[in-house]
């Protein structure tokens, strides 16, 4: 079975700074792949390259076998790539429901065309993440953890085939983290392939099928979570001799 996402020799330079350096990576269908690495290692840059917010300097990206590095961001969304943002970006003036409705209106295959259908879909997604009771509130009235759920609901409303999650668990307590892990597993059960960027190690260990580690824009390890997290190179990259 071919991978849903293939990243080949991907490099991204910003005026002299090499943010991503010759990264090769494949995400299999229906897999949960964890992406970890110290701050500044290029994780969010990689996600931005996949979603189309940034253009690569070199290398290629294949989604479901087809090359996408020249496809504009909005069309990648139509193909089925959805993402959340690390620094959350709700549409502040809109209600929670309408925020999610945007995802339903414009997602995969161009989304719904009727507002009512989109809003129904939005309700379903909010229900899925446990936020439906706040559907009528303004998005900027939500607190941190609820904003994370909103980000997730927005991405889900796009009915993606590939979901890119950028630190959806930052700032959550243990209970909230478990809930989110449960939600992500349910998402995978629907047949969606997921790339998860995380700092919360315990969560990502239990969630991922495989882990990939980035450091200074390069891939330094890849494999099963236990193997990767005990790899001495990975440990050094994070914090000298501290054990995870």
């Amino acid at each position: 079975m071919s991978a849903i996402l293939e990243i080949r020799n991907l490099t991204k330079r910003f005026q002299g700074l090499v943010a991503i350096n010759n990264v090769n990576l494949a995400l299999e269908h229906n897999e949960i792949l964890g992406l970890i690495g110290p701050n500044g290692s290029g994780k969010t840059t990689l996600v931005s390259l996949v979603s189309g917010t940034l253009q690569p300097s070199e290398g290629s990206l294949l989604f479901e076998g087809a090359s996408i590095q020249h496809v504009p961001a909005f069309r990648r969304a139509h193909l089925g790539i959805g993402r959340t943002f690390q620094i959350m970006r709700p549409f502040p003036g809109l209600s929670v429901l309408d925020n999610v409705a945007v995802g339903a209106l414009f997602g995969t295959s161009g989304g719904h065309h009727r507002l009512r259908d989109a809003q129904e879909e939005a309700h379903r997604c909010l229900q899925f993440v446990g936020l439906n009771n706040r559907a009528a509130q303004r998005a900027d009235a939500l607190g941190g953890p609820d904003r994370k759920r909103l980000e997730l609901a927005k991405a889900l409303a796009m009915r993606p085939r590939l979901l890119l999650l950028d630190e959806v668990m930052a700032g959550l307590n243990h209970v909230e983290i478990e809930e989110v892990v449960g939600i992500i597993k349910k998402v995978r059960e629907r047949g969606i392939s997921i790339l998860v960027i995380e700092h919360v190690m315990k969560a990502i260990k239990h969630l991922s099928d495989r882990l990939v580690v980035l450091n200074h824009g390069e891939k330094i390890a890849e494999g099963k979570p236990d193997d990767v997290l005990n790899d001495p190179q990975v440990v050094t990259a994070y914090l000298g001799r501290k054990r995870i």
Partner: protein
Amino acid sequence: MKLAQQLALAAIGVAALATVPWWGSAVLIQFGINALILATLAQSWNIIGGYTGYPSFGNSVFYGLGGYGTAIAMVQFHLPFAAGLALGAMLAVLFAFLLGLPVLRLRGHYFAIATLGLAEVMAAIVSNLEIAGRNVGLVLPLLKGDALFFELSLGLLALTTLVVAWISRSRFGFGLVAIRENEEAAAVMGINTTLYKVLAFALCSVFTALAGGIHTYWITYLDPDSAFDISLNVKMIIMAVFGGAGTVFGPVLGAFLLSAISEVLASRITSMASLFFGLVIVAAIVFMPRGFADLIRRFREVGWRYFQENVKAHRL
């Protein structure tokens, strides 16, 4: 109040206004025409400035193109008024597509300045064109009957408002609002931001140009300075913002209110109208920057503290 109810109320209002030419004084009808045209201009600006969040200072170009299209068609080619309007609208749409594309890539105040620059360029170019009468301008044939212009202006305003109402509940409109609130996120969610922005720009150009054509024919005269007048553009922005940008009826409300205030002051204290207009703008930006629509909505909750809160939120 749901949108459908608001529209029904507005329809009654339009029907009532339509009767004005029969019982109103000449002064009232003239005031009405000016107010209706300004309201249309504010409402059109609302599409690109209010909903899409791109504050255009180039709408005066569309107004001018509408005016000149009409004038040139009627004066130089002796075509009927409708043909003139159509020509004006076509010129405006062409301009919106050709120049909208590069200029809409700019963000925030850079976009505003670029459209301002375009307005100055157009004024300067037109003042050199023989067919447009150069600096002197053109004089249009006189058509007696303010009633006709009143009804035309009213009809145009109603049409523009209907379009904006449709936008507010459509997929297109949601796309525009998403672009306004967070353009990068909008793109990643599947919105073709370039296409949508240009379409919004083109849509507003049509109504602005039509308003320009009607107004020009009514005044029977135009020259580059008055056609591409930047202060007209600022006026329409202020009316839209004062009433409530990004709402369906805000710009109309703002235009009528400010026109009425200006008119009342002009009759009472003659030349001081300009001064009070400026002071009203300054006070409004300080105390009610989100416009009348927001004031009405939140006054019920917080009362007079609304004004204080606005200042506190925005002061250094």
